[in-house]
């Protein structure tokens, strides 16, 4: 495996007496597209929330680029190059699609309240650059024509693409996608896969939670399966498809056809 961009050591997360994630350890290789699968309630999203800093782990540790980031807040993790999307999209509904995307870049001078008063010229120059980049990113995810729409009014699939666009504006090295294809129509899913692979060729690392087994088997390598909070399988998609226990228990008929 390539050098690890993300390392997990014995991550455990309890909710009261319920253990959602149970001593999970694995490494994510730089430049890979890792598929994270498992039945509903297996702990996949909880694990994502721990990795992205939204939930502190009950125990265990996380390394990003070799540095311990276990209890960093989501905002600091984004600053260190870890971006994530949400299972249920979280657009800023009453803001334009363009504003949603323009929000994301880090270290904007205009984000200080006195910015527009003290350094109006520099702020407007920076805004211009951000707007151009935002339009490029929106074009990349095929949302450029919706730039002036309220983000709460676009379709669910488009919201998934919008979340990807927002994350891309921060230029993270590692992107966690939570069910990017769920509820997205086949055409948009095709666009999404194409974009993920293109970004991957440019060096981005992905970890993707997905229930669509065709998606996972065709585009992810390695594949990691969770069940009841534990890692039950880790290997290539070919090994996953040959693993009868995994197939029977979690994937069942989905792979047969």
């Amino acid at each position, binding site marked *: 495996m390539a050098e690890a961009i993300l390392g997990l050591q014995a991550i455990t997360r309890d909710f009261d007496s319920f253990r959602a994630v149970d001593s999970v350890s694995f490494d994510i290789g730089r430049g890979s597209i890792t598929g994270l699968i498992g039945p509903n309630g297996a702990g996949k999203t909880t694990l994502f929330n721990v990795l992205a800093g939204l939930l502190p782990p009950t125990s265990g540790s996380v390394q990003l680029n070799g540095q311990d980031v276990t209890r960093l807040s989501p905002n600091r993790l984004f600053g260190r190059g870890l971006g994530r999307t*949400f299972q249920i999209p*979280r657009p800023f509904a009453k803001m*334009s699609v363009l504003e949603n995307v323009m929000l994301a870049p880090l270290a904007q001078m205009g984000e200080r309240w006195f910015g527009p008063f003290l350094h109006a010229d520099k702020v407007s120059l920076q805004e211009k650059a951000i707007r151009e980049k935002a339009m490029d990113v929106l074009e990349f995810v095929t949302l450029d024509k919706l730039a002036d729409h309220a983000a709460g009014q676009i379709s669910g699939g488009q919201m998934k693409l919008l979340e990807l666009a927002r994350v891309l504006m921060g230029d993270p090295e590692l992107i966690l996608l939570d069910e990017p294809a769920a509820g997205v129509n086949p055409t948009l899913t095709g666009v999404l896969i194409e974009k993920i692979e293109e970004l991957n060729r440019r060096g981005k690392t992905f970890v993707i939670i997905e229930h669509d087994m065709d998606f996972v088997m065709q585009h992810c390598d390695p594949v990691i399966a969770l069940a009841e909070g534990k890692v039950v399988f880790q290997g290539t998609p070919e090994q996953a498809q040959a693993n009868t226990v995994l197939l029977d228990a979690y994937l069942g008929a989905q792979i047969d056809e």
Partner: protein
Amino acid sequence: MIGLISYLIFFTTVAAILSIAVLGLNLQWGNSGLFNGGVVAFFGAGAYGTLILGGTAQSAHLGGFELFYPLALIGGMMCAGLMAWVVGKLTIRLRHDYLAIATFGVAVAFENLMRNAEGLSGGAQGLRGFERPLHAWLGDGFTYNAIFLVFVLILLIATYRFLELLIRSPYGRLLRAIREDETAAQSLGKDPAKIRLASLIIGSVIMGLSGGLYATFYAFISPQDILPILTFQIWAMLIVGGAGNNKGAVAGAFLIWAAWTASGWGLSRFAPLEMQLYTGSIQFILIGLVIVGMLLWRPQGLFPEKLVISQSGRAKHVKNRE
């Protein structure tokens, strides 16, 4: 005739002063989603601060610093800002209704402190001994009030322009993102706690300005001026005008203040004598009805928030907001 003009000047001055407070609340609630249920505490901090710093020497309570008036006013605003900083630090983890309850409690505590800390605030008697600025030159009458109105209007316009610039800048985008979805904003590298604190302080400083002007206008402030009803009035103004829209905030302030004044006048004039005892209570009920009615039938207010497309200044109306 001169009586009517005098009255209009009086009315407009008070409405303009309250507009400034509504603008402050609009930054907090309309733009940042901060549910400040204690507007009157920050208004009061500005009022008491201004009079204590700018008043003449008194034996009964703190004061007599006789600061140059603009400094006293700025000092009052800083008192409000300082209080917002403390309140913000203490309530940093609270959201929505919890924040509303906490800030409401702060306002009640503030009112009681002012009522009882006689050495600080003159207690229930209020703060006296404030000379209105330029009083010696302009006298007490019509001219003074007209010039004071111009002064208030200039500050209202300045506040409005400041806030318009602010919410159309990248900072405004940041505030709206926090209002819409704090978790998503945090996942994009933004620090919600810091942003909410700054918005609370800026909005409260503006409320402090409003309180300072109010106290200057009457040359007096007492605990009776900072009762919870004022918080509700200011909220009604914002809800009726349109949260998220500064024009709406100002229009709502004038409308509600007109309705409040007219209902008081109408009740005292036309209501049966035994009802007149309850004028105040009836007005309380009316203001509650206005808030509930607006929230039910037109929650976006008379002037709905406009969608900012980007910071180029182009804005477009969104039709199907909630």
